[in-house]
């Protein structure tokens, strides 16, 4: 009876020890795996930073100027407006009257599209 108890006790202690050892091995196994993944993640982040830096360099104005400098020494910012000086038409009132439309031309204009420019009163 005593022997039975002793063996049972040994069995359970050994079992616990094995479970503990297995747990520790698993923890270290996961730690090694994590370390590899962490190293990989670090490398990816570093590569990402380097790529973003290169993008910043290539899109920087000094770099673009250096690339274009052989062709455009004096390129300037384009204006989004252009003002044009129109010449005076010197149109007389008689000529204005002649430009008035007759009934026939008005009828035609109703059914066709036509661009029209009228002189502006100065």
């Amino acid at each position, binding site marked *: 009876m005593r022997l039975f108890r002793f063996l049972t006790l040994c069995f359970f202690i050994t079992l616990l020890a094995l479970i503990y050892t297995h747990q520790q091995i698993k923890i270290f196994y996961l*730690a090694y795996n994590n370390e590899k993944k962490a190293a990989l993640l670090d490398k990816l982040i570093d590569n990402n930073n*380097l790529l973003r830096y290169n993008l910043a360099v290539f*899109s920087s*104005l000094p770099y673009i100027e250096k690339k274009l400098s052989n062709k455009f020494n004096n390129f300037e910012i384009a204006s989004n407006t252009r003002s044009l000086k129109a010449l005076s038409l010197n149109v007389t009132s008689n000529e204005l009257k002649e430009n008035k439309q007759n009934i026939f031309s008005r009828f035609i204009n109703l059914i066709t599209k036509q661009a029209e420019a009228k002189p502006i009163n100065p």
Partner: protein
Amino acid sequence: MHPLAVNLPAESLYAVPVEIKDKETVIKKLSLILKLDHSYLRERLFRNKAFVWIARKLVPSQVEQIKALKIDGLGFIKESKRAYPNGYLASHLLGFAGLDNVGLEGIELFYDNYLKGKAGLALFLRDAKGNKLELIEKITPPIDGSDLVLTIDETIQYIAERELDKVFKVFRAKHAMIIVINPFTGEILALANRPTFDLNRANYTDVEVRKNIAITDMFEPGSSFKIVTAAAILEEGKVKEDDRFFCENGSYRVGNHILHDHRPHGWLTFKEVIEQSSNIGTTKLAQILGPDIIYRYVKSFGFGSCLGIDLPGEIAGTIKSPKFWSKTSIGAVPIGHEVGVTALQLVSAISVIANGGLLMKPFILKEVRNRDGEKIKEFSPQIIRRVISEETSRRLKDILVGVVENGTGKLAKIEGFKVAGKTGTAQKIGSDGRYVHDRFVASFIGFVPADNPVIAICIVIDEPYPYYFGGVVCAPVFKRVASDILKYLQITSEKLVALKENEIDRVNKNH
């Protein structure tokens, strides 16, 4: 927004001297890759130490070559390296960080506390081979440094530097400076000096080149300083624009000194005195005011004291107290001699006239953000003091428009816009303390559009050659820089606004 400074990963090479068997072979191989002296490497590898640095923050190609050698006793530690994608752009303003990422100049130094963050701490396990395991026993997380959002506009900075480069080279100048500022807020939109340097190679650049001379060096401004005298006399109500002054046909005795104009003038109105930049006319105005009033306005405009810009190294300049003025000082100080000013003070002074009379504190840092982009601090414009009234500012604006339309600043004219400005040409002082006749400082300060200014600009060229007049050397730079900036900011010309309004009126009448 584009980053102006970033951290990049960089590996640093160390050695454990006791573990290296054949040191001479290692020295030869490393010397070829790293381009280092044999004597330097020998000194390092023969040290009786467990750890020595060989080279810090190497480029990836060098790291790969050394790793391929598979030498026992050499290892790499990962660090971070400060890198500047724009190279030379805004180099004096940004500054740079040293080997340990500690700011040494410019914004990097001034705001190092925000940028550097706080190191963390981690205790982790190693295996029997010394390999680190991802098993952390104790951790204090690091606090990342903050991101700084600056007031400078990258495009405006580029435009300013491009034109500064041209004038610096064409006129073979000793130095050149340009500052572009928002006159209403004091935000610095661009600041540049020549000669300049690549921030990624700051360690190989001469210390003199790295100085931000726009705030650390002073010079006698010459005629551009006359805006102070003109503002003072208008504010004190002593003259009107049409009051006439006899300019002595170009020669006038002040104390024991003969004062000259660059061109002889007879009778000029007060407006014409400033437009034609008559030294004699300005001296007569100053004589009406007296030294004490002039000194008061000079100080009020911000000269003789630091403006408090958030950059290291700003100097106050010099202005003598009236009790130290000689008999000739009344003919010197009001025309910009016997005073030492910085380019920053000049641009702030012209901004006073542009914005209706307020001296604004110039600043560079707009916001501080955390790593997630959230704003944690914001900086607002600050008024230092009111210098002149709005009415005086308006009258002075008209006079300065006259300088560009009719006077010495014609080369600063921009089609479709009213430009206000003042030229300056100052003789330099030689080593014997006397003014020389072959070395000058040329300057132009101005703002545009005159009625509703968007930008104020100061250009200073030290020792231009062969031409040296501010109106010839600096005014065209102002024109080119301001034109491009106005296009970039899509500021419509006053002519176009008038045309558009006329067209709207016409359409409304027809309907």
